[in-house]
């Protein structure tokens, strides 16, 4: 196997498109015997990040964790190891930062063409676009 994509990052937001991205990543990981890292970001508006009461929202990570558990199940069915990671913050910024962090050793980022923002459905999703621009690793956009 000549392919060097050992570690693939898949940002997930629970939308259909991100699941398509996950399927593609699983497919790629099978070919290269790589591992997947799923990243799910809970959107936190900037105001709440500063506001002390913003942290009282304990339920917030539940949804994100469920997405990750689903992804883990999906990958396990195909025999691929998947490590989930949930963080809170701004999706585009945090995905790019996670991918660029050399500690994580990401070789490839696989994103769905668009996520949940329905207003921009005709175009490439705003988050995908941000990741495309800011990420220093190869990016695969799945349509």
């Amino acid at each position, binding site marked *: 196997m*000549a392919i060097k994509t050992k570690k693939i990052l898949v940002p997930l937001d629970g939308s259909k498109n991100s699941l398509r991205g996950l399927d593609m990543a699983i497919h790629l990981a099978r070919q290269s015997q790589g591992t997947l890292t799923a990243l799910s970001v809970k959107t936190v508006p900037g105001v709440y990040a500063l506001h002390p009461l913003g942290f009282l929202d304990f339920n917030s990570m539940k949804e994100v964790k469920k997405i990750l558990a689903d992804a883990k199940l999906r990958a396990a069915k195909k025999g691929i190891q998947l490590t989930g990671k949930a963080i809170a913050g701004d999706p585009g910024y945090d995905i790019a930062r996670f991918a660029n962090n050399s500690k994580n050793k990401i070789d490839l980022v696989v994103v769905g063409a668009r996520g949940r923002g329905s207003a921009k459905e005709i175009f490439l999703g705003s988050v995908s676009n941000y990741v495309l621009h800011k990420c220093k690793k190869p990016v*695969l*956009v799945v349509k």
Partner: protein
Amino acid sequence: MTANNFKKILVPVDGSKYSDKALKRAGELVDVFDSKVVVIYVVEKSVPINLLDRKEYLQILRKFGNKTLDRAHTILSKKEISAKLLLKEGNIVSEIEKAAKAEKCDLIIVGNKGLGAVTRFLLGSISNKISQSSSCSVLIVK
């Protein structure tokens, strides 16, 4: 997984080192997925060119295009991949999209930037437009 197979890969080249990188990446993918490669060079016609020099200018561009396609061919043939070479004329993005449709490509591999020096820090304008508007998956090599 029939939908996920990369049967045909389109690689637009412009002679920059980023497009060489894209070619190399395409070669790796071909090893794994047994896909066919289509290499395309588009002679840009949409920029307004001085009327008098137009013919000469386009000829130079065509020559350069053939040269880059030859180079792409040698890079790929080192890995024993036979690629289909295309030389098109017109608007770069729309020609690439047309080619992707005509050849029924499943994946487009582009370098993240091309020859434009102004956009050196950003994603190249062409790569950006392709990723926005193409109907198939896009791999951006950095």
